[in-house]
């Protein structure tokens, strides 16, 4: 039957990408349907019970600045919070939290159920309705036809998912969930660039069988960091420690003894796995000289004994898993609650996507999350939010939006995905961002809240808190720029205490704050420096901005140059074989990638500045380089 209601946006899948997509689309004002094969698993953390980390935490803060759910849900479900790289500069600091799976899921579910414009429905999707290269809706397992103007696909690892444990394997989407076979077949028919990836997960351990007295304990930070810009420590549930054990030579012998039954090493698994998240069998083979690997035992929640042993992801047969787990200190009697496994799944190479995450081949169809070849909850959620927003914008005939590389990690990720494609699961790292010094966790709100507000993603409470903070920062910065310190009036003892030595001439406080060894609180103790601001976050931001100012100013030229090219649109029907002077290799590459702008073309590997010049000439002759209308900012 045809479902009686026609939606603006349908989101297929209820993981981290799907839930953020549905929330964003509905928040922005689209009538949205979220379809999941199982409403009970909405917002499920299917792998490790933690959110954030270097690069990933940055994404979570950006999601939060755009009104997304992940940071806020983590504040409600987090059972341990830490700031990584706390001893290093702010640009590389990141928040990481252990989360209670159940509390996290509840926090997401509550938001979904209470979101205006958002409908939930439990049915697996089997088919897409496509008319004249435009998606018009989806068909579920029961044959229900749902129509919508746009569709967001967030199928995760479910497309033709195949789970491996030792030499046995079986189709599944995630442990305990069925795979999406029909949908995968249907998508393969659409002739999209499809590939196969692999990821893995460790066996889970019953905490009652772990001897914690032998293990090193790891607590969260005090005071507890908060994830959301409008979150509070008081939202946090009871906090738990993690525990650290390690593999040893005996563990490694056990693993080596099982390699002949490993699907990874016997060639059964074809998909490419991530280099930065290797299975334990991979680690001891590639780094054979390492005698030991640290294993973090992470609690899965407050109401369960289950532990997640981070570091022993494996697809070895169960008997080997049990022996290797029990060979480690404190784990001698460990009971495995769920076996570890590897999963292979279909993904669609994101070179087939626009920077709105819409398919270049099927109009109105958006892709987000692991289906695009990324890994990680945070990467998925960030894409989901962007795809949901752009699906909404298209349904309302508005221009799409994607942050630039200098505006957000989200922009870096999408640009990397569409201009480089994916050959192994893509994970965010700060080293991927050339503008790392300005893409910080601490200023994600300053970078993105305003644009989020414009699109209707940011509610009044967040907006007011943001405006107050932004104003306070600007005021205090101005004050520091206008407050001068004169060496004649500055007592030597104060100068030495705060600045190390007397100043040679008059300085504005702001200039002094730029010095590496000077901090805000101390600076404000100088006579005549005035009253420090009371909001710590404001003081912190003023200080950080002063410290990085020189570096960020220096990058401006580079950014401006990149911007020129990013504003030049390339026609989607451009045949690069007709561009005079381009080498065959460059022609093929451009025809394959079909970049949307000259900027994207220039970032594709192997595309030279000369090729870009030739392209510009061609545009001038035939088409004329148009300005894109997509940059709504």
């Amino acid at each position, binding site marked *: 039957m045809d479902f009686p209601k026609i939606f603006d946006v349908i989101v297929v899948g209820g993981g981290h990408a799907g839930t953020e997509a549905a929330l964003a689309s509905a928040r922005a004002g689209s009538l949205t349907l979220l379809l999941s094969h199982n409403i009970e698993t909405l917002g499920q953390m299917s792998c490790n019970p933690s959110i954030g980390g270097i*690069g990933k935490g940055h994404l979570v803060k950006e999601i939060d600045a755009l009104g997304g759910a992940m940071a806020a849900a983590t504040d409600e479900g987090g059972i341990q919070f830490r700031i990584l790289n706390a001893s290093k500069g702010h640009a590389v600091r990141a928040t990481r939290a252990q989360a209670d799976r159940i509390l996290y899921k509840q926090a997401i579910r509550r938001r979904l159920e209470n979101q205006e414009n958002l409908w939930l429905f439990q049915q697996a999707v089997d088919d897409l309705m496509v008319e004249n290269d435009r998606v018009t809706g989806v068909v579920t397992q029961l044959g229900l036809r749902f129509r919508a103007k746009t569709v967001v696909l967030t199928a995760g690892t479910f497309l033709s998912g195949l789970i491996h444990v030792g030499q046995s394997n079986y189709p599944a989407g995630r442990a305990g969930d069925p795979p999406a076979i029909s949908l995968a077949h249907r998508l393969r028919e659409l002739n999209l660039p499809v590939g196969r990836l692999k990821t893995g997960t460790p066996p889970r351990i019953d905490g009652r069988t772990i001897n914690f007295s032998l293990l090193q304990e790891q607590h969260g930070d005090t005071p507890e960091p908060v994830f959301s810009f409008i979150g509070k420590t008081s939202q946090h549930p009871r906090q738990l420690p993690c525990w650290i054990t390690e593999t040893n030579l005996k563990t490694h012998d056990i693993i080596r003894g099982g390699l002949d039954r490993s699907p990874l090493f016997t060639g059964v698994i074809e998909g490419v796995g991530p*280099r930065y998240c290797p299975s334990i069998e991979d680690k001891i083979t590639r780094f054979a000289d390492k005698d030991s690997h640290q294993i973090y035992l992470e609690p899965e929640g407050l109401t369960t004994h289950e532990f997640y042993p981070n570091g022993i992801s494996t697809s070895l047969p169960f008997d080997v898993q049990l022996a290797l787990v029990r060979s480690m200190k404190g784990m001698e009697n460990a009971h495995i609650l769920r076996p570890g496994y590897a999963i292979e799944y279909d993904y669609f190479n994101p070179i087939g996507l626009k920077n709105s995450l819409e398919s270049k081949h099927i109009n109105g169809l958006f892709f987000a999350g692991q289906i695009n070849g990324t890994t990680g909850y945070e990467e998925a959620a960030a894409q989901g939010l962007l795809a949901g927003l752009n699906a909404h914008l298209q349904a309302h005939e508005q221009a799409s939006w994607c942050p630039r590389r200098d505006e957000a990690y989200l922009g870096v990720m999408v640009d990397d995905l569409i201009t480089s494609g994916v050959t192994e699961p893509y994970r965010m790292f700060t080293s991927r961002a050339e503008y790392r010094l300005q893409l910080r966790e601490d200023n994600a709100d300053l970078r993105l809240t305003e644009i989020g507000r414009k699109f209707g993603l940011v509610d009044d409470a967040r907006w007011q808190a943001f405006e107050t903070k932004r104003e306070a920062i600007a005021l205090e910065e101005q004050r520091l720029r206008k407050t001068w310190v004169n060496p004649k009036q500055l007592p030597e003892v104060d100068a030495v205490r705060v600045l190390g030595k007397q100043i040679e001439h008059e300085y504005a406080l702001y200039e002094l704050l730029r010095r590496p060894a000077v901090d805000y609180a101390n600076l404000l103790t100088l006579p005549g420096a005035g009253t420090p601001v009371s909001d710590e976050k404001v003081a912190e931001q003023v200080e950080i901005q002063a410290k990085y100012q020189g570096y960020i100013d220096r990058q401006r030229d580079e950014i401006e140059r990149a911007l020129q090219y990013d504003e030049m649109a390339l026609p989607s029907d451009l045949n690069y074989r007709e561009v005079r002077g381009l080498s065959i290799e460059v022609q093929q590459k451009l025809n394959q990638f079909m970049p949307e702008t000259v900027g994207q073309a220039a970032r594709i590997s192997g595309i030279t500045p000369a090729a870009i010049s030739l392209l510009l000439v061609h545009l001038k002759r035939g088409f004329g380089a148009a300005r894109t209308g997509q940059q709504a900012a």
Partner: protein
Amino acid sequence: MTAVQSKPDTIAAIATAAGQGGVGVIRISGRGVSALAVALLGELPPARHARYCEFPDAQGLVIDQGLAIFFKSPHSYTGEDVLELQGHGGTAVLQLLLQRCLSLGARLAEAGEFTRRAFLNNKIDLAQAEGVADLIEATTAQAARSAMRSLQGEFSRTVQNLVAELINLRMLVEAMLDFPEEDLDSIDTSRRDAQLALISQQLNLTLASAQQGSLLREGARIALVGQPNVGKSSLLNCLAGEEIALVSDVPGTTRDVVRQEIQINGVPLHIMDTAGLRDSQDAVENMGMARTHQTMQKADLILLLCDAGQPNNIADDEIIALLPKNLPMLRVYNKLDTCPGLTLTDSSKEIAVSAKTGQNITELRLKILSLVGWRDMASGAFMARERHLNALQQAQLHLSAAQTARDLPELFAEELRLAQTQLSSITGAFSPDDLLGEIFSRFCIGK
């Protein structure tokens, strides 16, 4: 984030064909042109008026004199502010002038970049655009060939080594930033500093040995030796004869060495005329000889002047025995006019000339230049090489900034990244993904 106005940087290049032609033109285009004009000429010439001026170097010494014409945006070839400097056509003079412009903030234009800008600013109509593709193709191919030539041999190997060392250091630094939770061997700061110092030092050496610029600025020292009356001073006058900046007698610090400065193709040569060099029993003269010998050790080239009429003279051999053995030497037989039939055994180390008739003097000049390391390259090759050196210099700046920021890991990493970006313009792109690949192959990452 506030919207920023596009601001193309300022580019410069020699706009005339290579060679020793009469007039040479340097074109500069971009938003920084007026500031550059003021810094170079002392003022911004009125738009579209040819003005005769001096083009001084950083010390105020005149490199060349000629016409400066300023074209105000949009009424210029590129549509941006453009300054054209028309000077003498000699390669060295033009290159000195170009380097001066670069030191004032312009960067070397890429192949076809002026045309590309013209084009982006709608200064070229559709018909003209047809020709532009061909031009870009041709200049690109030529630039690529030039770059290849510049990159051959020792220079290339050194740069590749540099990059490998830098990648190694970056790998350690970035791994620490991106993977703080892995139990990586934390970077030993003294090892890090040593590594950085080593890279920096290698970079300096590469720069010093590869730089024509220093040759242009500082010139080469040439020791002129030979028996009395073989015609040293007439040869000197002859060598310097046609040049602009002429022989100026500078009294030597001792009576044994007379210094003179001449220019060949714009390259300054400091000639040390060691008049008294011959075997002597005289004690006083021997002391002078010792000093002479010291002076000669500092020379870049020794010119041994002999009489073409008396080859294989025993007195010449005695002089040779006294010369430092580690320096390049050119044996010049003068007075070729008196014995035209002279045959040479090794033309790489010998040449026969006549200071009197001027015969073979041009060849001698070129030979001297070549022996002191001056490569009279076609301008394309020069540009390519200059681009590489420029990249090395920029990289060097970032490495010293890294040195200052070494206790602030994210700033340290940023400077290293920028240094590598500069070197990548020589050796080819190195993406963040390549760097991550290095990290994953070196460290066991992933819990």
